[in-house]
């Protein structure tokens, strides 16, 4: 048998685990991610954020190859800064979504190996979630999970948010939108579940909550321990971050 020379080429990608998740409400949006970063069976760090505040009405979660993810967030932020320079206001979320599509597709043949979920508040005050694939296909949804434990979390959300495989009690119907406290509980349950069953998920959970102007949903945040406000403009939308421990094993 003849041996041919082996061509071993450099692989510019790796996979850093973790999971992200976003759920839109009527006048709020919750965007969450765990903070474990791993490669293979090694935990690189227990705290590497995957969820980033872009503006007071938009939050971006990135998952996949961490180096690509961090660079992508930096580049999006640069584009938002130029928008601010040109228009003296923050870019609306539907425009950010289209921007992200074009930025991802521009690298169609050497993609950012990143799944993006963008959450926030639309100009009409509704909660929004946009999800993307690595080359820019995107759609607006009510909820989306992505990353290592997508296959564990998404079916749970389909059942609990879209009420798939449930039938309402006679004479009743399922709600169009869930209240914020219910959504926060679902997010926490999703991640504790994923932590139990997926080795790449765990350590801690970061949940960003974006509220529309004068949203009554603020009530649900009154008694949450360790909540931190991240709002920086007077536009009316408000951003909060809630952190919770997950199992570290």
């Amino acid at each position, binding site marked *: 048998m003849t041996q041919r020379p082996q061509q071993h080429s450099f692989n510019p990608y790796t996979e850093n685990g973790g999971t992200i998740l976003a759920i839109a409400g009527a006048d709020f949006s919750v965007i969450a991610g765990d903070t474990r970063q791993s490669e293979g069976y090694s935990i690189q760090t227990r705290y590497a954020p995957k969820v980033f505040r872009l503006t007071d009405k938009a939050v971006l979660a990135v998952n996949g190859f961490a180096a690509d993810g961090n660079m992508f967030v930096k580049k999006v932020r640069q584009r938002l*800064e130029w928008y601010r*320079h040109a228009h003296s206001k923050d870019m609306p979320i539907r425009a950010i979504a289209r921007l992200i599509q074009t930025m991802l597709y521009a690298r169609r043949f050497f993609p950012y190996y990143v799944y993006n979920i963008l959450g926030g508040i639309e100009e009409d005050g509704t909660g929004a979630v946009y999800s993307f694939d690595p080359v820019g296909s995107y759609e607006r949804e009510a909820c989306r999970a992505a990353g290592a434990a997508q296959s564990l979390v998404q079916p749970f959300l389909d059942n609990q948010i879209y009420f798939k495989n449930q039938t309402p009690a006679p004479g009743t119907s399922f709600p169009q939108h869930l209240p914020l406290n219910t959504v926060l509980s679902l997010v926490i349950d999703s991640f504790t579940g994923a932590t139990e069953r997926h080795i790449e998920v765990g350590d801690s959970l970061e949940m960003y909550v974006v509220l529309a102007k004068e949203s009554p949903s603020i009530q649900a945040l009154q008694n949450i321990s360790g909540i931190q406000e991240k709002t920086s403009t*007077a536009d009316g939308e408000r951003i909060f971050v809630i952190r919770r421990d997950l199992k570290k094993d």
Partner: protein
Amino acid sequence: MFRNTYDSDNTVFSPQGRLHQVEYALEAVKQGSAAVGLRSKTHSVLLALKRSTGELASYQQKMFRIDDHVGIAIAGLTSDARVLSNFMRQQAMSSKMVFNRPIPVNRLVSSIADKAQVNTQEYGRRPYGVGFLVIGQDNSGPHLYEFSPSGNSYEYYAMSIGARSQSAKTYLEKHYESFADSSLEDLVRHGLHALRETLQQDKELNVNNTSIGIVGPASVHEKAVPPAGPFRIVENEAVEPFLQTMIAKDTATGAGAVPPAAAAATGDEDVQMAG
């Protein structure tokens, strides 16, 4: 048409050792409406007089945000200012990209000064026709710099540029010793008083023609400023509470001692060179 023998080319010295084109560029700065800058231990502020070409026209933009920690006020050619401020924004962003650090204000000012210097030396170019007052804050606190088309940049406690800026300078020279420990409100009031000196006889500062730029913690008159006190431009109705703090000219201490405003250079006059 030539007013001097050695002025058609900026790379040629006059026998007196001067670059006439560069000095004409400095005159372009003096044609622009005035801008004033002041600094305390906690804040830097800019105040600028916006001009409009007539009743039907809007007011010319006098201030630009460069980054969260830096802003500028301009006097001279607005189009040149846009080119330079864009360059400053790029520098600021590149510092964030490469070092994840807000660009130090002195580096930013040096970078445009170096750019301006090239235009005073290379064949086929012209100097920028605009001057800046740059305010910003970094690890070493708040700063105020002046940039001019000659490629010079200096740091100041207080400074003014543009038309009749000598009158504002006279006011600032009289009061600057108190600026370091001033509150933001006092600092802005001094700035407004200085800016007022540059007005023509029958004109007044109002919400339409006054821009205020601030870095440092929020004033009592401001709403929703993040704690870091990033650069912000205060315009229109938001200026009113600051204008209210001004003391009428007759009663303002020492205002009477201010000499009459120097005559602005008009287009037809020959440019008078300094010594």
